[in-house]
């Protein structure tokens, strides 16, 4: 498991899964940094992205658009995306806008990683 704090966006890897931490306010500035980090992790070979919203209080419209872009990017790379540790207000926003139809929202990071493990096990078993 590697930890990278070289950029402002905090991230670490668990196997082929990258855990990326969203900042307290997900807007244009922070959103673009997260998007760059996701792109970097996918280029390094990650097959899944867990975006951890434990520090996130607010997500604005630009943040939503950037998250949709990350989902697209993951789809193009055959990678999965899971959101974790999302506060109730943000979950309501994601549900209202339909993002929850595109990604799983896990209770916390551990649950997200377990979900991914289970999904991978299914694929291997299949």
């Amino acid at each position, binding site marked *: 498991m590697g930890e990278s704090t070289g950029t402002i966006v905090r991230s670490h890897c668990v196997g082929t899964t990258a855990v990326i931490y969203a900042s307290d306010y997900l807007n244009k500035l922070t959103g673009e940094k997260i998007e760059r980090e996701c792109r970097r992790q996918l280029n390094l070979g990650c097959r899944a992205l867990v975006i951890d919203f434990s520090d996130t209080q607010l997500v604005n419209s*630009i943040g939503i658009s950037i998250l949709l872009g990350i989902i697209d990017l993951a789809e193009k790379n055959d990678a999965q995306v899971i959101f974790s540790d999302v506060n109730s207000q943000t979950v309501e926003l994601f549900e209202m806008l339909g993002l929850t139809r595109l990604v799983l929202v896990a209770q916390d990071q551990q649950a997200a990683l377990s979900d991914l493990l289970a999904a991978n096990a299914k694929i291997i078993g299949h």
Partner: protein
Amino acid sequence: MESNTEKLVHAFGALADLGQEIASEGGFSEMVRTSLHVLLGTLAIRRGAVMACTPGSDALECIALWGLGDGFPIQLTVTAPEREQFLGAGLCRVTQNDNSSFSHFLNRHQTELQNSRLELIVPMAGRGELSGLVVLGRKASDEPFTEDDLEVMRAMVRHIGVGIHTHRLLGQIEQRAEENRRLYEEMRTIYKDTVRAFAAAIDVKDKYTKGHSERVGKYSEVIARELGWTEEAVEGMAIAGYLHDVGKLVVERDIINAPYKIDAKASKELNRHPAAGFEILSPIHHPYADIPLMARYHHERLDGRGYPDGLRGDEIPFGVRIVTLADSFDAMTTDRPYKTRLSFEHVIQDFRRNTGTQFDSKVVVAFSRALLKEVTGAVKERRIMKLLNKNYFDLDRAVPLLTNLITELDSNTQSTAAAGTLA
């Protein structure tokens, strides 16, 4: 109902973000890109692009895109009648395939748009003209757009359209301002070249004082700069120096070139040149102040014994006093047919003797300081010394002469000022 309220709150927040983006000082491309993000994020639309009309062409230029594949940007065109149709209709669905006014446009582009998974075309307007189209894909929820969604979309695209229009207008204004600056610079160059040509014409007429006008221009420039004037005012003084003798063009050549001291009648004719210069220069709109007056007054004296108007003291503008000293210095330091040039010691004596009656002490001090800086090497460029003959003065002797004159005139000025205060 609750969900609708939440959507409205989200849309209001997004509108505030959009307003901030459009009013931001960032670049045009960044403004459009972020505005597209705001629009997509407000309704959670997965992909879209902003296509701007290009002046004088039917082609649309993609100026921002998000979530679109490598096939983008696609080449879209919109004809003049279609522009009117888009403005009238407000919105067009890519899938509509009736005999609507968009049939020609859709016939050309429907397949490409559908391949890019784009569903809606929203026109952008600025000042009643189509400024471009925003093309949008489906919502993340896969639900159809509601009437409320379309209203929000139209409102936001209107804002983006106004933002693009305003940025473009600003760009045009900046471009025109730049053109004007360039034209102004060209005109200044033409003006300066013309002035130099005039100065050359004056000097050609007077074979004994070749280069006099140019030297007076340069001396005047040096004095004004030493006095700390603005660059524009310094340029103005150079021009005044170049043109101060322009009235000599109307004086008979024989009088100007007389190799002897001229008689009273000829002297009267020669003395016409300041007023004649004023007449020549007055109709011209000079970019600098008082150029005609500096030609008219350059033979005036502080003691009132000058010509043509016999002005005294403060009646003589300060710029004129600069030209007067520059003119006299050149007359003293160049050979004339009826007299040889004065030695530097004699020039300094003349300055000392005539300061307060003919020359302004501040101008004499400024000129002396500028010359002293050149003599001592305090300045790199020797603008005055370059115009004087080599070996004109002994550098070692020049330093005390100039230093003493400056000290003397400075203390005189201070004691006069003190006396004025006491009075």
